[in-house]
């Protein structure tokens, strides 16, 4: 060794330094690049008589400035931020639509009920009726367009899930590949780290982590295992595991994520396993917001349709016939599990009109374990039925009293022949509610604005008794059996006060000349309902009240409301539905919300969720920014620093070159001495 070799070692080291600085400079904006520096050490000194003489320098290693702990922080924060980001971009679409002053449901609903009220003001006016029908049609169209938009969002959500799954698979394969190369390089040099390859893998993980939250486990062979959820593998060593987007066994319209295991088995993952990252955001949006919002709008459509139909059927239209259904709507959506042991088709579910207010926005899952039926409400995972019989056999066959509906639902088990243990099906009571609502007719005359019966007091009455306008409660009563065919009540009724008028008798007034007594001696209480009668419980589907002081022999009659074109009694009751509380009833209490407040509830839920997601997203992003900043502080390239390094190593190089020049000169001196 000598002066030359010392100089050359300096030259080499300076060259490495310049090379590393240049590498840093040129990769200053490479994603995932961590700056590198050379670690210089002294060569082993030579022991001479005068002590150890230095032998120059060498580059021990090129070190990558990287802190694994900080890297993990970035991963964790970024998975959260990108989940919230994807959630936000999805939910924003609904958020903007719901409360839009022109596109939301509220204005259409307001216009609809205004139409009803205007019809009530002028029940005989055909143009008024027509405009009410038009308002109904535009309400229906609004329901459908909101549902259409949500279905589009759902379809978009499905296809994005498929896209994300593909992207995740690509990353898994690439990471497995890099793992392979890292194992190889580890084999060729155990002491020197393949810095750029490691950076590549870190970057790959970072990108993957933005799609789905992953955890990594470093292996001694240099590879890194990647997991998601509760330890489901994505990459183990050099083996990537493929995710698959498949249709749910419970609902073919729902794309879910499955893991392909060894041997090609497919395991459908519960949605709780898909957390973090864009995929996590997509899945969470669908299960937490989209389902509830679409079901919520569907529930309003169904409840409105059912209530309106019920009331409409208590009226009579301009043609003199009893009101028909005003809206049509679909029964609950029932889907058989595609893996059911039996190949039964799904049973039929129906709504319980009397308990329609108990309808929830949840989906249900009914399973049969061989002995018992279990019905689980998806929203709160509560078992709402667990018994050897379902609540709910055919509602029209078995009396509802014996078989109560659950959450406003009936299931016709008769249509589910011989279930086998393990069979299950999903009920979506309200999912298609908004989609399938429609108006049932377009003839304005068929709007039932009037009530089918009217009351009158005989002119010959001597007392001050008054009879109120009847309130119709049930037109399926036998009294209305031949109403449409004959335009008659079965029977028309005469209430005549006895002598003295403390009691009265109810007569069948089919033949007014010879009324037939039905029940007599009924004590008179002013303002009390005449029907059902106290004795034999006569009930003709309507209620009348007599008040005041009727005289002996005073007569009050109930007859069909023929030609009552100016009668708006039913129209007013239809209009009153607007503010009536008809929804969100519980088993213990009655309904608590009107249509509008139910809708406001959806708006407020979606709005709150949006703002929550937004603020969590911002905080996650801030966290990620901070973590990234910390990493950058340590590992990022500073061009000024590298410029200084360039200068430093350039000067070192020049100095080392000077050593060589000096050595040459020394040799020249020595050689010239010999001349």
């Amino acid at each position, binding site marked *: 060794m000598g002066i030359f070799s010392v100089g050359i070692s300096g030259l080499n080291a300076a060259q490495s330094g310049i090379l590393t600085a240049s590498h840093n400079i040129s990769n200053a904006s490479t994603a995932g690049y961590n700056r590198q520096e050379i670690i210089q050490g002294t060569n082993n000194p030579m022991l001479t008589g005068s002590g150890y003489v230095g032998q120059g320098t060498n580059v021990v290693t090129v070190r990558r400035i990287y802190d694994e702990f900080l890297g993990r922080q970035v991963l964790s924060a970024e998975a959260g931020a990108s989940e919230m980001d994807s959630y936000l971009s999805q939910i924003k679409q609904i958020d903007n639509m719901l*409360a839009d002053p022109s596109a939301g449901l509220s204005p259409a609903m307001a216009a609809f009920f205004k139409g009803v009220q205007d019809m*009530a003001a002028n029940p005989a006016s055909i143009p008024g009726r027509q405009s009410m029908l038009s308002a109904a049609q535009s309400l229906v169209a609004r329901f459908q367009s909101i549902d259409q938009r949500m279905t589009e969002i759902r379809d978009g959500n499905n296809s994005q899930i498929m896209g994300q799954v593909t992207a995740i698979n690509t990353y898994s394969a690439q990471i497995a590949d890099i793992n392979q190369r890292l194992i190889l390089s580890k084999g060729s040099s155990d002491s020197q780290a393949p810095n750029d390859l490691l950076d590549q893998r870190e970057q790959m993980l970072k990108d993957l982590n933005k799609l789905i939250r992953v955890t990594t486990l470093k292996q001694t062979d240099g590879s890194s295992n990647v997991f998601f959820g509760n330890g489901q593998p994505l990459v183990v060593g050099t083996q990537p595991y493929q995710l698959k987007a498949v249709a749910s066994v419970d609902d073919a319209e729902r794309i879910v994520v499955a893991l392909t295991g060894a041997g090609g088995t497919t395991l459908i993952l519960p949605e709780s396993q898909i957390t973090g990252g864009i995929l996590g955001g997509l899945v969470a949006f669908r299960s937490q917001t989209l389902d509830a919002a679409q079901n919520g709008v569907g529930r309003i459509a169904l409840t409105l349709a059912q209530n309106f139909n019920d009331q409409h059927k208590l009226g009579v239209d301009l043609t003199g016939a009893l009101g028909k259904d005003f809206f049509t709507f679909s029964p609950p959506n029932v889907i058989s599990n595609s893996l059911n042991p039996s190949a039964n088709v799904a049973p039929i579910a129906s709504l319980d009109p009397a308990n329609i207010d108990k309808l929830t926005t949840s989906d249900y899952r009914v399973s049969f374990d061989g002995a018992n039926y279990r019905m689980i409400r998806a929203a709160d995972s509560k078992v709402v039925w667990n018994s050897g019989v379902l609540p709910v056999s055919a509602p029209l066959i078995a009396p509802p009293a014996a078989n109560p509906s659950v959450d406003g639902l009936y299931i016709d088990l008769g249509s589910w022949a011989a279930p086998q243990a393990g069979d299950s099906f999903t009920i979506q009571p309200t999912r298609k509610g908004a989609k399938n609502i429609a108006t049932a007719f377009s003839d304005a005359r068929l709007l039932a604005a009037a009530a089918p019966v*009217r009351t009158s*007091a005989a*002119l010959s009455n001597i007392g001050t008794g008054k009879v109120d306008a009847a309130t119709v409660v049930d037109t399926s009563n036998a009294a209305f059996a031949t109403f449409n065919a004959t335009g008659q009540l079965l029977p028309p009724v005469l209430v005549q006060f006895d002598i003295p008028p403390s009691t009265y008798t109810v007569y069948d007034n089919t033949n007014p000349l010879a009324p037939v007594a039905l029940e007599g001696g009924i004590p008179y209480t002013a303002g009390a309902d005449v029907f059902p009668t106290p004795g034999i419980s006569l009930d003709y589907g309507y209620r009348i009240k007599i008040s005041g002081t009727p005289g002996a022999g005073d007569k009050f009659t109930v007859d069909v409301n023929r*030609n*009552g074109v*100016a009668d708006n009694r039913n129209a007013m009751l239809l209009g009153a539905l607007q503010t009536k509380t008809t929804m969100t009833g519980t088993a213990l209490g009655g309904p608590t919300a009107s249509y509008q407040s139910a809708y406001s509830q959806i708006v407020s839920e979606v709005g709150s969720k*949006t703002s929550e997601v937004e603020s969590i997203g911002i905080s996650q992003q801030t966290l990620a920014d901070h973590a990234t900043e910390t990493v950058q502080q340590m590992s990022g390239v500073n061009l000024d620093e590298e*410029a200084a390094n360039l200068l430093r190593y350039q000067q070192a190089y020049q100095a080392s070159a000077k050593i060589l020049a000096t050595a040459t000169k020394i040799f020249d001196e020595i050689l010239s001495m010999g001349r």
Partner: protein
Amino acid sequence: MRISTGMIFDAGVGAMNRQTSLLLHLQQQVAAGRRILSPSDDPVAAARALEVTQSRDIVAQFKDNHNNANSALGLEEAHLTSATDLLARVRELAVQAGNTSLAKSDRAAITFEMRARFDELIGIANASDGSGQYVFSGFMGSTKPFGGTVESIMAGGEIGYQGDDGQRRLQVSPTRFLEVSDSGNDVFKRVRNGNGHFVTDYPKNGAGVGTNTGTGIIGAGSITDPAAWNANPTKSFSINFSIDNVPVPPVTYYDIVDTVSGNSMLTGAAPLLPPTAATGQRAYQSGQPIILKSQGAEAAFDFGGSVLVTGDPANGDSFNIAPSSSQSIFATIGKLVGALEATTSGLSSSTAHLANDIGFALTNLDQATDNILRVRAQIGSRMGEVDSLSSANEDLNLQYQATLSQLQDLDYAKAYSDLIRKQTDLQAAQQSFARLSKLSLFDYI
């Protein structure tokens, strides 16, 4: 602290992005004039705004209904005002006709006008509203409620009513369904005749001609104790006059005889005729009220009122008293016309019959007027209710508007100042970034 060059760029761009998005949000708020652009801006306020909007819309709907109610009630009121005037005129004519010195031609002129008034009243009762719906036909808006002529009444008939008893209503407040019509039955037909409790009349033969021969004229009578009147199971009786010709001058007696049993109420037994001071009848004196209640030692009975008979009834004359029933206004006028036209002879009994008939007609006309005034009073109170609801509605509307404004509207002053501030912030971020990013050591080597 070590700074990487990338950080300078990332931080700069990030800061500018944030500033720009805040600026954009402010700009959108200012452009829309709304504080809440989407529910997520303020979920509670957004949901509340929807509900308040519905409340405001409903208030607006009630306002429409108030207008509808007012116009329907106003129309009805106008028709009933005409009817009231008409009845006043008929009453005037009836009083005129009572003048015994009128010539036949004068009376004919009066009946001619009465017939015209009758037709006019039918016209009023068949009035229709702007959309062609009959006002007084109950629910049967397209059915003409009344039809008939004076002749049909003179022949003992009544004016038929083709409508029903329905009262149209409109929702004028969340809980109030206000009646905006009255049925023709209630207005024109359900009018109690007589004094409202009983009706007085004189007996007629099969041809409808009065059989009294004296000049007795019976008033409408009155009930001062309705409870006593109502307590009687049967309320039909007659006041029979008989004269005891033995004393000089002869004494006129009257008896109150139950129509059903034929017994005298005063004695509780069959009337004893001819009357004497000992047969139980009361002595008659013109202008003295006939108390319809047992006096002194008479058998107990009590109708709770009295009736006045004036003039000189002949022996065997009688007046009938029966419970009031409903008599249409048309029938009242028609009967009056019939009575006027039937009066031809100058017999004193005929004059008495006419005087009686005019008396009955005046009583019934007053009842009719009262009934229409009662309906008008109801209309007035309904219109008053609409007015007060309207003004309450206006207040509500203002309140809802104010609430909505608070919930949704933008505070422009604040928004503008925020906008300027954010703009300044952004400019500062841009300028500082431009300066910072220019710094590089490479510029100097």
